[in-house]
């Protein structure tokens, strides 16, 4: 059976060009970039090229890119650095719909005595920016950091991070964004928005798992999260994951090239999938603002059926996606994102997230459009909540 992979917000395939560029650095070019000999130094040069490529994708300077092990490490490093730089400030502002990398870190910090504001969102997933501006206006001196995701992993809804970042910068407040889902899907310009720190992850943009980066604006005296050697100019200790860094560099270069295709062809495929599923499956609805959304993401709820069951039947047809439901994750409530948006239980439990990449085709969308209606019907036929 062919696999139709529409779970690219979870992870992506490593692009063949990326793998090809990485391969020598697993074997013959194994030098340590920190070594004095040119055998190692040459690897260092290749890492510098990767740093330039990542920087270009988000309009940063190469020296502002710190390589990490993943998006989660980037997020943790950013928040902990902000707290260390502002030891007297005890207030963190974030949103109610962050990825666990920020959400659970903030909950942990809350237990340690920090005051966290989890800014709510409305039914469409829009951030209540008024609340943030109100707090900034009144208590700017106590805010250590504002951390907001650029785009939501479940719904694709895009936050006005540029606007909030500028207001934060005006007040001298550090602003961090978890841009793991946004990078490579929409244009990002850290300079234009005056962003202090930005997290990105390799495996969401066709680089391998286990590599991420943190953009740290020039001038910030960034204290390292991992302490040890002098690597990354003292901002992240540990021998460089050379092959993966080089892979992330290549993937960033490709992502920049593919931004236009994301915005046009992939958006078109997503819209085709969305329109057809809504038309062919009664009592289905899209979660989140349809306009202000990543071009590759569709979060769609089917009333009166449950996500895990849907996914497992989709699996029988070779279709990979995610659910907004609980049963798959071990927790029992529907996703905190859908709950924060007050999506009714009826559709929240039956929510499926399709997330596309530039590898997807129209034929694949047609296949999904054909496969889904009987799956939903089959589960509704045995659901006590389905009113025919």
């Amino acid at each position, binding site marked *: 059976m062919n696999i139709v992979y529409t779970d690219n917000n979870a992870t992506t395939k490593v692009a063949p060009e990326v793998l090809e560029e990485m391969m020598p650095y697993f074997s013959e070019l194994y030098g340590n970039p920190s070594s004095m000999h040119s055998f190692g130094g040459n690897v260092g040069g290749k890492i510098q090229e990767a740093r330039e490529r990542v920087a270009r994708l988000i309009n940063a300077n190469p020296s502002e890119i710190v390589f990490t092990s993943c998006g989660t490490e980037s997020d943790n490093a950013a928040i902990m650095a902000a707290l260390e730089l502002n030891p007297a400030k005890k207030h963190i502002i974030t949103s109610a719909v962050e990825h666990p990398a920020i959400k659970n870190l903030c909950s942990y910090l809350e237990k340690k005595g920090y005051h966290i504001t989890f800014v709510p969102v409305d039914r469409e997933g829009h951030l209540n920016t008024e609340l943030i501006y109100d707090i900034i206006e009144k208590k700017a001196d106590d805010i250590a950091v504002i951390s907001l995701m650029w785009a939501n992993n479940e719904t694709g809804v895009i936050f006005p991070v540029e606007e909030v970042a500028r207001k934060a910068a005006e007040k001298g407040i550090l602003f961090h964004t978890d841009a793991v889902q946004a990078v490579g899907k929409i244009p990002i310009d850290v300079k234009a928005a005056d962003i202090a720190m930005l997290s990105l992850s390799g495996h969401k943009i066709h680089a391998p798992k286990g590599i991420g980066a943190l953009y740290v604006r020039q001038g910030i005296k960034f204290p390292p999260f991992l302490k040890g050697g002098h690597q990354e100019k003292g901002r992240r200790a540990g021998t460089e994951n050379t092959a993966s860094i080089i892979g992330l560099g290549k993937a960033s270069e490709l992502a920049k090239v593919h931004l236009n295709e994301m915005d046009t062809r992939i958006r078109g495929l997503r819209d085709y999938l969305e329109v057809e599923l809504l038309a062919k499956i009664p009592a289905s609805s899209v979660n989140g603002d349809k306009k202000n959304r990543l071009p590759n993401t569709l979060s769609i709820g089917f009333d009166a059926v449950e996500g895990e069951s849907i996914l497992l039947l989709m699996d029988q047809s070779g279709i990979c996606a995610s659910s907004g439901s609980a049963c798959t994750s071990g927790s*029992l409530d529907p996703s905190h994102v859908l709950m924060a948006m007050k999506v009714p239980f009826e559709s929240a439990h039956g929510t499926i997230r399709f997330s596309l990449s530039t590898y997807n085709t129209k034929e694949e969308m047609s296949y999904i459009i054909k496969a889904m209606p009987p799956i939903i019907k089959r589960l509704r036929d*045995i659901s006590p909540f389905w009113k025919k």
Partner: protein
Amino acid sequence: MWEYNDKVKDHFLNPRNAGEMKDADAVGETGSLSCGDALKLFLKINKSGRIVDASFMTFGCASAVASSSALTEIVKGMTLDDAEKLTNDDIADYLGGLPKEKMHCSVMGQDALRKAIRSYKGIEILAKPGNTICECFGVTDLEIIETVKQNNLKSAEDVTFYVKAGGGCGKCVQQIEKIVESILAQA
């Protein structure tokens, strides 16, 4: 991912006795939309108090569907007295075991069956006895105590896996821990 054995998969992909029974003699319902799973059990009962047919409608994950399917297969042919003694373990055993996190699906089967039988016997089902501990899923202290004892549970996490209590907002987890600890202390 699939953490289910072949029998659970089979009962999910090919559920036995699925669908509404129009002329049921007894109906038992448990769960709700907000909980994420619900089961409506239909029984056909003959004059001598034997279950001659059973069917179900289920909203929920694969193991909820499989547990419901298994339940209907188990109870067909049983006397009401025997069926009343059926436990969630019997359902899980019939399926060759369920992942621990999914044991609440078998508990749902036991609950729906008891409700169906009690309503058939004319036993009024009063509001749940005991004090509500878990607001998210409406679970009382007496239910938690019964489940802990019946299944030899050792932690609050186990309780969540069996009756969901504590699996929502998490506010009651400490209370559940205390209940489990006091039962373990008595044992």
